[in-house]
């Protein structure tokens, strides 16, 4: 038989326990919630600086949506009218070519971006035509453009997208996957090879030494703009592992002291010249 009043005692116990527990109130303006780096905020259709919808109806969001809850219609950056009907055609939607088949004829690019970047249009067009605009050649084209400019200028990417009739979102996504620079590098570009051979023969200690020497991590530039540090598996010097590339010159095999010496050497010359040497000026 239940003793009368046990429920009341339990209730008092619960409230007393809560009295001493941590509180759930968040003092909003003073303390902000910890958001994941990948948090993109509320889903919203935003506008670019030119007043157009930034949504280009690329369907990347619809493709990755695990419950296939996203559907849309609109105009992409090339003026194609993209329209999807019933959700029964999910398979078709997942086909990257499906929305292109449903589109209208392509129009010239409406949003010219970063016109301050002077690029050699005929070089890029020739490059694309040289690969016969085949989509699988995208990485080879990026490589050629990066070799020429030191990074991938946005206008060149736009041009490639236009010329190859690949969506801008996909071109940009491929360029951002890794291995390519999307912004011009500052000063000397120090590339530490992180291929397997270099990594296991001491490349990681070289990277650690350079981190300490320059005070920056991979993908960052020093405050004075003299050095940019990055890692890449594309130095292509497996025979002389561990290898390191400074601008265009590849050095190896190196130990930590030699790597430091290379930095000190560059530091002295740039100090003597007075102005940092811009990357990609070769």
């Amino acid at each position: 038989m239940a003793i009368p009043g046990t429920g009341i005692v339990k209730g008092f116990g619960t409230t007393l326990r809560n009295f001493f527990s941590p509180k759930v109130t968040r003092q909003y303006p003073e303390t902000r919630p910890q958001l994941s780096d990948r948090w993109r905020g509320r889903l919203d259709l935003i506008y670019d600086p030119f007043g157009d919808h930034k949504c280009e109806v690329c369907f990347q969001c619809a493709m990755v949506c695990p419950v296939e809850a996203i559907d849309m219609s609109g105009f992409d950056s090339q003026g194609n009218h993209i329209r999807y009907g019933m959700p029964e055609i999910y398979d078709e939607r997942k086909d990257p070519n499906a929305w292109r088949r449903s589109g209208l004829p392509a129009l010239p690019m409406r949003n010219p971006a970063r016109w301050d970047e002077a690029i050699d249009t005929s070089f890029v067009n020739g490059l694309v035509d040289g690969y016969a605009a085949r989509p699988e050649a995208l990485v080879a084209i990026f490589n050629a453009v990066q070799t020429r400019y030191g990074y991938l200028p946005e206008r060149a990417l736009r041009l490639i997208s236009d010329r190859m009739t690949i969506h801008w979102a996909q071109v940009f996504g491929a360029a951002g996957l890794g291995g390519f620079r999307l912004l011009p590098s500052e000063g000397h570009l120090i590339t530490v090879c992180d291929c397997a051979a270099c990594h296991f023969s001491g490349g990681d200690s070289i990277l650690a030494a350079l981190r300490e020497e320059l005070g920056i991590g991979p993908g960052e530039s020093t405050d004075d703009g003299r050095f940019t540090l990055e890692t890449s598996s594309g130095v292509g010097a497996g025979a002389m592992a561990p290898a390191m590339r400074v601008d265009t010159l590849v050095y190896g095999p190196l130990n930590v002291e030699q790597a430091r010496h290379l930095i000190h050497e560059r530091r002295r010359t740039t100090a003597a010249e007075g102005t940092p040497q811009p990357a990609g000026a070769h």
Partner: protein
Amino acid sequence: MDLSLLLGVGRFVLSTTLILLLTVPTAFIIIYLELKVIALMQLRIGPNRVGPAGIFQSAIHGFKVLAKEDFTPDQADRPVFTMAPWMVFMAAAMSMLVIPFAPGLVALDSDISVIYFFAIIGLSVVGLLVAGWASYNKYSLLGGLRSAAQMVSYEIPLTLSIVGVVILTGTLSFTNIIEWQRLHGWGLIWQLVGFPIFFIASTAEINRTPFDMVEADSEIVAGFATEYSGMRFGFFFFAEYVSLFVMSTILVTLFFGGWLAPWPFPAQLAGFGGTIYGLFWFILKTYFFVFVSIWARATLPRVRVDQLMGMAWKVLLPLALVNLFVTAIAVVVFNL
């Protein structure tokens, strides 16, 4: 005029003034405690903006009430409507006159202070009833009638539960009751049944959760206070917390040794030092029971009207009578 009469009048004026002044910080502190403790028990932070840890929150509430419109319904019985709040408030405040806060710190050390106390605290039901009547509002009237029914019902077990203490101690003076407890131990161990009856009945008497039928918002809006606004409402609000304080002090006085410390009172602390020492223990114990009352409010839901009345007449009253009977027999048999 006779000098002793003059002294008596002066003492009365001084003590009533001090008691009235004491009600203000008391109510502010208890209102703040209620806001903060309930918040903490609900896993919230509670007031923390006005002053350090929000300690001025209740003072700000007081000023807000002062700044509000003082509204009187058209058909209200104006003099009674105006008088009701201060009847309730004065009943709570004036009952503090006989409370022994510390050795030597009691405004009116009367031989019949127990009777005085329960007579005065019972007056507040008149205030609530006329407030409900004078408002010319059905909800107010219902609230007033409910309060009358509830408080009259609970006054019986409340009073009977302390008769046990009175029989044991053989005195109606709070000071002597405390003196008896100093010699024989706290009243709680002599009145194990009397204490819970008193605690429950006093909670109902001052309309605290879970017995706050008088202002059951979901049933009768705000009960007797529906038509009250501004400082008149503020007086009701004040009175509620002052009577909570007063009931806690009486609970401490009757069952927990008043200003006695849990261990023997140090003999070297005579005079002023003893007063401070006693006041410390008295306030500490009182605010512990204030905390328990707030704790109960954070825990328990409101009971139904029929449960409320049934509890008073079917449970508490028989228990109180049995307690009184057993105590009386014990006093005779063991010659206490």
